[in-house]
């Protein structure tokens, strides 16, 4: 007897259709053989599958059995093939009708007792199968919720192998799981960190608002204890609300990483803050069965690097390509793969090693020491940061002014969302999404300045000694500030604010020359 069961192989986020084929033939020695470009862990699954079948009440006939995972040019790794292989065996034994099986896909790991165990990557698998026209997908019970988030395909969660077989034989009904992403999103609004919890820090909050509105990367500079991290943690709460598509995009990545929580989907924008000892690989992602790194786990959210100068050069170097392409390419011996990596980059640092420059009553770092500290951040990374703002030490005056109401994240988000809408309209039909995406060639068209503004820029450049690169960053940022004021024109106030936020420029850090 021959049987073929559909399943999906994942390489990173890239899904491919794979069939688990079983042939049972008379003659020869009784043997179970598995072939088809299998990674070590798939080869080892043979004994597990045999035991799971036996413990689920299926007797494997003493015949020559060959299992082939096809096509042969895709490397199969992981444990998600257990279920389709086992079902294929059961069907080849004639215990499951062939009818209708062609429109079903399945994936899952088996325990020795025959239980179906949860796996990583169910959401991208199910979405891929749906796009390929499959009508049903059988998933581990533990993954039924994330799978159910995919629309227009029935997702059936099974607890064990026997249940799966019964269901496919038509002896047992299982209700498809369904999740309304929209409803879930509507229910989950509250971010843990809200700007209303931060006292004072008006300048910092404003800088962050501008950064978020145009998706500009931001660097927060301030002494220890000035609340840089606390402010950064609030950033996701003022990003525009998650759309259903975005929610699924993020959830797919978390599904592959096996990082989905009990609710089965990622319902808030991620905030990822790796420690400065993080390796380049952990930031980028990779491994033999490629896992998304921090740059992908922060997709559509915020990647925050605290103590930026403490990160290794190698780790920071990794960031350049995803910051440019909004996705990351990982090349490995077994073929390359791509993960999405479209994040808002936020970083924080002290102004010097001791943290108090230029307060000379506390900082005795020499000027070369201060410069050396800054030079740990490479120029190419600095070039990708449009905005830098000061976080000031919290003084007791601010803490005493408790009567003053602080603005909530929701209020700020309202203005951000307006600015984002303005950009959406302006860039309709182009590849540009946000002001931060503007390339040098786009600036003339989208950031025109009048004579008075031109004059101010010229003067600022000669007197403040700014670089040409700074010029472009300032224009992009001024465009966003104008958008926040719902102003078509960029005026001198917008420019002045953008100049105040200009990124650190090593040469002019000290200013006094």
């Amino acid at each position, binding site marked *: 007897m021959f049987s073929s069961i559909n399943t999906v192989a994942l390489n990173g986020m890239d899904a491919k259709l794979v069939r688990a084929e079983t042939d049972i033939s008379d003659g020869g020695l009784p043997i179970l053989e598995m072939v088809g470009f299998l990674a070590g862990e798939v080869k080892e699954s043979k004994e597990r599958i045999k035991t799971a079948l036996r413990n689920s009440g299926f007797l494997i006939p003493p015949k020559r059995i060959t299992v082939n995972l096809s096509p042969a040019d895709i490397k199969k790794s992981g444990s998600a093939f257990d279920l389709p292989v086992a079902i294929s065996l059961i069907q080849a034994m004639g215990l499951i009708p062939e009818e209708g099986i062609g429109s079903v896909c399945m994936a899952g790991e088996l325990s020795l007792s025959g239980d179906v165990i949860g796996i990583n990557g169910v959401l991208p698998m199910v979405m891929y199968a749906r796009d390929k026209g499959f009508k049903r997908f059988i998933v581990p019970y533990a993954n039924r919720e994330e799978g159910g988030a995919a629309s227009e395909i029935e997702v059936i969660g099974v607890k064990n192998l026997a249940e799966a077989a019964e269901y496919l034989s038509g002896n047992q009904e299982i209700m498809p799981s369904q999740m309304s992403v929209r409803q879930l999103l509507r229910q989950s609004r509250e971010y843990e960190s809200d700007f209303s919890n931060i006292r004072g820090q008006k*300048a910092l909050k404003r800088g962050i608002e501008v950064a978020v509105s145009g998706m500009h990367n931001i660097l927060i500079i301030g002494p220890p204890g000035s609340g840089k991290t606390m402010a950064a943690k609030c950033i996701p709460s003022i990003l525009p609300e998650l759309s259903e598509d975005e929610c699924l995009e993020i959830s797919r990545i978390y599904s592959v990483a096996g990082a989905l929580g009990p609710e089965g989907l990622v319902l808030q924008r991620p905030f990822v803050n790796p420690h400065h000892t993080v390796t380049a690989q952990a930031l980028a992602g990779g491994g033999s069965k490629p896992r998304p790194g921090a740059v992908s786990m922060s997709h559509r959210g915020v990647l925050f690097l605290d103590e930026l100068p403490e990160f290794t050069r190698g780790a920071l170097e990794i960031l350049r390509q995803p910051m440019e392409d909004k996705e990351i390419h990982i090349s490995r011996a077994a073929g390359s793969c791509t993960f999405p990596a479209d994040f808002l980059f936020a970083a924080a640092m002290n102004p010097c090693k001791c943290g108090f420059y230029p307060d000379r*009553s506390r900082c005795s770092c*020499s000027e070369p020491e201060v410069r050396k500290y800054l030079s740990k951040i490479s120029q190419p990374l600095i070039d990708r940061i449009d905005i830098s*703002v000061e976080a000031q030490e919290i003084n007791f005056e*601010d803490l005493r002014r408790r009567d003053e109401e602080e603005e909530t994240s929701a209020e700020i988000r309202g203005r951000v969302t307006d600015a984002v809408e303005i950009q959406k309209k302006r860039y309709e039909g182009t590849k540009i999404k946000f002001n931060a995406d503007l390339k040098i060639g786009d600036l003339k068209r989208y950031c025109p300045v009048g004579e008075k503004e031109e004059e101010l820029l010229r003067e600022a450049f000669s007197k403040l000694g700014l670089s040409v690169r700074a010029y472009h960053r300032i224009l992009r940022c001024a465009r966003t500030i104008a958008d926040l004021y719902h102003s078509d024109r960029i005026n001198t106030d917008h420019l*002045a*604010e953008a100049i105040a936020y200009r990124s650190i420029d090593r040469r002019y*850090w000290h200013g006094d020359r």
Partner: protein
Amino acid sequence: MGTGEERYISAFDKDFPEKLKNIPMPPAGIYVKGALPNPEIPSVAIIGAREASAYGISVARYFSRELSKAGIQIISGMARGIDGTAQREAILSGGFSFGVLGCGTDIIYPRENADIFKKILDAGGLISEYPVGTAPKKLRFPARNRIISALSDCILVVEAREKSGTKITVSHALEQGKDILAVPGRIYDPLSRGCNSLIADGAAPALSPESVLEVLGIFRDKGRTKDSLNKNLEEKLSSEERDVLHCLDFDPKGLEEIINDRKLKDVARERIISILLKLQLLGLVNEIGRQKYHLTDKILK
């Protein structure tokens, strides 16, 4: 003025400065590039901390500029911070500037003062006890300091920590019988502690460049206003701009502090930021670090 060629002047040479002869441990000879200070013109040493504050830098510039305008020769140790700032400002104001080195005259140290090394030969010269190729070593600096003090008629200390190289120069100066002036500062500021204790010990407080001139026996016309802020400049500013200016100090103030200042409660944030930029472009205000603003010496008359 002098040439770029280095020459050696021994203590027996007729060109050897008289002022260097009558000190304890006089040098056996000196290497000179450019000119030596003119003995007919008063000289002031402006010295202080290497890691100076924005306030110290502004004051050093102000005094150096004003004293240069009065024709005084400025002498210092070419170090980072107060020394280099005073010497650079003297050159920029068209005055005389002399650098006394603790290394060979061919060695540019510290690097950030490379611009002064280039220009000083047209405005004065470089002086050292050590031959070409001698590396800068900390242990040589106290010896260099005795020459700075010897060549000067009085010593102005702008900023100094309680224990510092500056205090060594001062002790040489006292030994050599020179007048000491110190710029007073806040009592809790470690960079002013050295100066304040000098004043307590009898140094003259340097309240303005006039204080220095008085010590030198020079009196400028009395017509000048005592008010330390530059009224002419201020009159060109709008009232909002003046308000922002008056919120600032020589110590850096963060943007957050400025926009929260009660005096500016009626000025919108974006206006304050615009004004800060304008004041920077006028040279009245400088940004140091990130969004920390302070007054510059230009604000002084």
